[in-house]
């Protein structure tokens, strides 16, 4: 597979799908893959713990983009998981030998080419395998968050694919069946946008969407800054880490979605979406300010004041509520 082109992306799953579809003859930008699958979200999950701290998500759960692109693009994605790691490795080799490019779910902890400090036990990192080095047997990988294509020794990739824990990949690999088709934009784009507004505004659980942001604000406000300063700092640090980690840069997902809205505005000839895109960029900047304020408190440059961070979050929640309301009307 020498004709595969690596390109860097902001987020792993949208990056993998964009590269995979492009390889199969359908040029689809990363923001379009992200927006068309309605992947933008917010979730505060106090029950799911990562190293004892709650999970905060700024997008829909893993595989949502891969699955969500099937309907608008008339595409069928084939997913395979394996109970037996040996069979998982054999199947990957078989697909690569047949000239396919294959998406893989991996744990960042076991991928040696990533920076040591970013290698936590996060199990839902997506990479593309596009071949094997005939001599060493190393896999040729396209990791969307890496600047260039990388190589990975078979033993390391095997560990990464069969890591255990929350969101265990169980060797998941995926590839498209059939040829992806350019969609009927006036039909699929408004539907995808409306779905995102439903997720953000109408989710039945108070931990999803705008209500989730307010719920998180409440949890942060409840931190005991005086008696439990260290734990409080870890908690707020985790919130920002989930916002930033592995290549989304500040309100990263907000910026990706804003870029999607610009593309949608051009495809549909609707300048209103352009204007909304600008507003979402501003909201993304608010998320960055929240991150900055949090980091300053962690470092002790500002006194630890959870209530101030909670207020900032509520402000963001208000702005997102107004934004997604207007977006719904514009779609």
């Amino acid at each position, binding site marked *: 597979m020498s004709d595969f082109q690596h390109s*860097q*992306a*902001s987020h792993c799953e949208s990056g993998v799908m964009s590269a995979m579809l492009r390889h199969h003859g359908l040029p689809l930008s*990363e*923001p379009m893959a992200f927006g068309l699958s309605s992947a933008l979200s917010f979730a505060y999950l106090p029950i799911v713990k990562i*190293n*004892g701290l709650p999970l905060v998500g700024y997008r829909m759960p893993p595989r949502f983009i891969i699955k969500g692109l099937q309907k608008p693009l008339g595409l069928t994605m084939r997913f395979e998981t394996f109970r037996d790691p040996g069979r998982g490795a054999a199947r990957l080799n078989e697909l690569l030998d047949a000239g396919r490019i294959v998406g893989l779910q991996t744990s960042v*902890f*076991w991928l040696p080419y*990533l*920076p*040591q*400090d*970013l*290698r*936590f*036990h996060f199990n839902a990192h997506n990479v593309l395998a596009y071949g094997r080095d005939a001599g060493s047997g190393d896999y040729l990988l396209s990791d969307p*968050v*890496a*600047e260039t294509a990388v190589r990975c020794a078979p033993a390391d990739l095997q*560990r990464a694919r069969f*890591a*255990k*824990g929350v969101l*265990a990949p169980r060797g998941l690999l995926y590839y498209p069946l059939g040829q992806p088709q350019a969609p009927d934009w006036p039909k699929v784009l408004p539907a995808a946008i409306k779905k995102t507004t439903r997720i953000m505004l109408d989710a039945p659980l108070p931990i999803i969407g705008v209500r989730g942001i307010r719920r998180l604000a409440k949890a942060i406000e409840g931190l005991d800054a005086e008696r439990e300063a260290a734990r409080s*700092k*870890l908690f707020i*640090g*985790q919130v*920002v*880490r989930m916002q*930033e*980690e*592995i*290549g*989304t*840069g*500040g309100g*990263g997902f907000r*910026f*990706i979605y*804003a*870029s999607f809205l*610009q593309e949608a505005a051009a495809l549909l000839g609707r300048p209103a979406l352009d204007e909304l*895109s*600008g507003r979402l*960029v501003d909201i*993304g*900047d608010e998320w*960055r300010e929240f*991150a*900055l304020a*949090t*980091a300053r408190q*962690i*470092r002790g440059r500002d006194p630890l004041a959870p209530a101030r961070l909670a207020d900032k979050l509520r402000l963001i929640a208000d702005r997102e509520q107004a934004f997604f309301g207007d977006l719904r009307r514009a779609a």
Partner: protein
Amino acid sequence: MLDSEVPQEGNSTLDGHRKAVYARGADGKLHLVQSAGWEVEEIVTRQAVDDLRRLAEDARRRVIAGQTSPLEFHMHRVRMDVPLLAQASGIWQWRVRRHFRPEVFARLSPAVLGRYAEAMGLSVEQLKTAE
């Protein structure tokens, strides 16, 4: 965020890697820009790494003092916690905790030690010392 505002101040936790973010260009269009790193990200990543390192260092001292087994030290060193180590090794959480007792750990069979070593990507010899 304008593309001229994309942080380029460097981030030691990225180890020289650059990441890609979307930012607005002079024409108002969003496009992908490489970032050498943002101090905010460095602070929160460093915080998590330091906390894990502190746990491992603390466990190492207790191994030397005979208060815990090398198993706990290695668990923290590979950034795991008890639930994850239990899942990765297929050994119940209460047994993992019990194996933190030095006298229990000393009597573990090679088979059980092998399962822990495999789960953490170590050799059995490494597992037996807090190095």
